[in-house]
């Protein structure tokens, strides 16, 4: 039993709440298919999970289940973020899944279980829980991407995603097994101690293991050169699912990467710095350039997410606590701005799917155009939005670590990608409308977009509310 007690269960209360709700929903799945029960239940469970993670942390940081997971400020930060993303995505799905034929209750069960996986991943301090959490996310994501069975493009995306992601999982598992073979332990701190003690930092096998684990994680967060699945999966999946992949999954992957960097393989490892700098530079550059050519909104947001992951990883290259905290801030703000942008895309329906649909939106629906402009400014990184704060903290941490070239590249790329975001703004404000006025947004969608907009604005004006809370492990 390795010292697991009933008291440990209290520490995973947020996960238990989400799992319990998922089990209840699956039991009554057939009877609540066409009702709003799944959405309400998911949002309530997410709110309860936020409250529970607060209650759990009011005690000291502690590890549970014989050192398999830990409950500290870092885990709590990301658990709240994951629960918020879950609630917002559930609200977006009310309109986003309309007429798609997706089974509502199963959809929400999968969202809940994927969120459990994310929460496990962010609190994992052992290779085994870390891998299991990531697998739980990916297994649910496969089905979520393909949940609109009637659409061939959805099936295609699901199969592509499945083939590539299972390959990435296998790579990561291979890396984990090599690390276990070399160090004789699976716990992050044990691995770090063993590497330091036996001088394994330059061991070729250890470097191979590190590269394999980093490649697997880079795949999960969609960093270049492991990004090729991202645009296809986002485009094929229904829009709320794409929003969930872009928000929750990325945040969990970044959190896991942060722990691996800070605890297991150590911030001093030169190989790790090279890998991280490479991932960050490539993602920022490739994402920012390829986003310019996109006309499909989901593909556009997919390439934008690739670039943003690059910025987020930049925080980790420093290998310091301040850097890790910058990445946390970035992940937090990015989740809300991307969810908001996806929300507007969902609200506009078929019209929102392509760039042309945004022509003249400001004269038809000034409010919608206004919030979309806010999210676009945030994605670009304009001051007074959370996007600026996020970019500022990661770039300054990269400069602080001496990666000046990387920082310059990031600034240049952010200017380059501004072109595409501003093009949407120009289409909205300076063109005549060509399509009929879109219908009013449903209340659920408006609430979700409003929450995302508030976080984006407040984060830009009073960033300390979040940055003070983002404390590295």
């Amino acid at each position, binding site marked *: *039993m390795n010292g697991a*007690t*009933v008291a440990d269960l209290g520490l995973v209360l947020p996960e238990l709440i989400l799992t319990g709700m998922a*089990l209840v929903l*699956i*039991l009554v*799945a*057939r009877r609540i298919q066409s009702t709003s029960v799944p959405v309400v239940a998911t949002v309530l469970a997410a709110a309860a999970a936020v409250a529970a993670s607060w209650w759990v942390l009011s005690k000291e940081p502690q590890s549970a289940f014989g050192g398999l997971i830990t409950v500290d400020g870092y885990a709590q930060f990301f658990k709240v973020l994951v629960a918020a993303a879950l609630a917002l995505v559930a609200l977006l799905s009310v309109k986003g899944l309309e007429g798609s034929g997706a089974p509502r209750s199963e959809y929400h069960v999968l969202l809940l279980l994927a969120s459990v996986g994310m929460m496990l991943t962010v609190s994992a301090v052992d290779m085994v829980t870390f891998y299991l959490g990531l697998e739980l996310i990916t297994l649910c994501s496969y089905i979520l991407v393909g949940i609109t069975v009637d659409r061939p493009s959805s099936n295609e995306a699901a199969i592509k995603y499945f083939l590539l992601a299972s390959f990435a999982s296998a790579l990561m598992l291979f890396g984990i097994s090599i690390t276990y073979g070399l160090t004789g332990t699976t716990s992050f701190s044990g691995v770090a101690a063993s590497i330091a003690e036996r001088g394994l930092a330059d061991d070729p096998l250890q470097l191979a293991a590190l590269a394999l684990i980093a490649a697997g994680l880079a795949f999960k967060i969609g960093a270049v050169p492991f990004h090729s699945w991202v645009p296809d999966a986002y485009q094929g999946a229904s829009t709320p699912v794409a929003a969930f992949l872009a928000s929750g999954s990325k945040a969990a992957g970044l959190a896991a990467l942060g722990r691996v960097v800070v605890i297991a393989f150590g911030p001093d490892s030169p190989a790790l710095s090279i890998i991280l700098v490479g991932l960050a530079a490539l993602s920022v550059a490739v994402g920012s350039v390829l986003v310019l050519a996109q006309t499909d909104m989901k593909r556009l947001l997919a390439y934008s997410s690739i670039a943003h992951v690059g910025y987020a990883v930049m925080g980790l290259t420093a290998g310091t606590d301040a850097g890790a905290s910058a990445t946390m801030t970035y992940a937090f703000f990015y989740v809300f701005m991307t969810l908001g942008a996806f929300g507007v895309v969902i609200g506009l329906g078929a019209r929102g799917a392509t760039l042309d649909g945004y022509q003249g939106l400001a004269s038809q629906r000034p409010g919608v155009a206004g919030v979309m402009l806010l999210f676009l400014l945030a994605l670009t990184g304009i001051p007074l939005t959370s996007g600026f704060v996020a970019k500022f903290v990661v770039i300054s941490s990269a400069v602080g670590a001496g990666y000046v070239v990387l920082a310059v590249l990031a600034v240049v790329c952010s200017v380059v990608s501004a072109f595409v975001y501003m093009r949407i703004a120009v289409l909205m404000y300076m063109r005549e409308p060509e399509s009929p006025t879109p219908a009013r947004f449903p209340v659920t969608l408006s609430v979700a977009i409003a929450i995302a907009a508030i976080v984006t604005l407040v984060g830009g004006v009073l960033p300390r509310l979040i940055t003070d809370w983002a404390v590295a492990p």
Partner: protein
Amino acid sequence: MNEHTGIAVALVLAGVIAGGMVWLASILGKKNPTPGKLAPFECGNEPIALPTGRLAIKFYMTAILFILFDVELVFLYPWAVLYRDLGVLGLTEMFIFLGVLLVGFVYAWDNGALEWK
């Protein structure tokens, strides 16, 4: 030379001798096939259909439900061996595990997985 060398030599020798016999027979032997010679000899009845024939898709649901209980058994065996050491906590955990699996089974049942149609 260690104790494994003998095994390796035996393996190679066996392979060379057996393979060599088949190879020699195939180049030196006389080939005069007749339908009677080509028929399977003492291998049971003549096949009436290809073994890779079509199978009703309905069986896949049965197979998935089988896996549900198969995996359950995989976990039940080691648990049963350690049952006394695990105590009441272990018993509770196993019942929770079975309950979670049962939820999945009830879901499948509820959605008509057990109806043969």
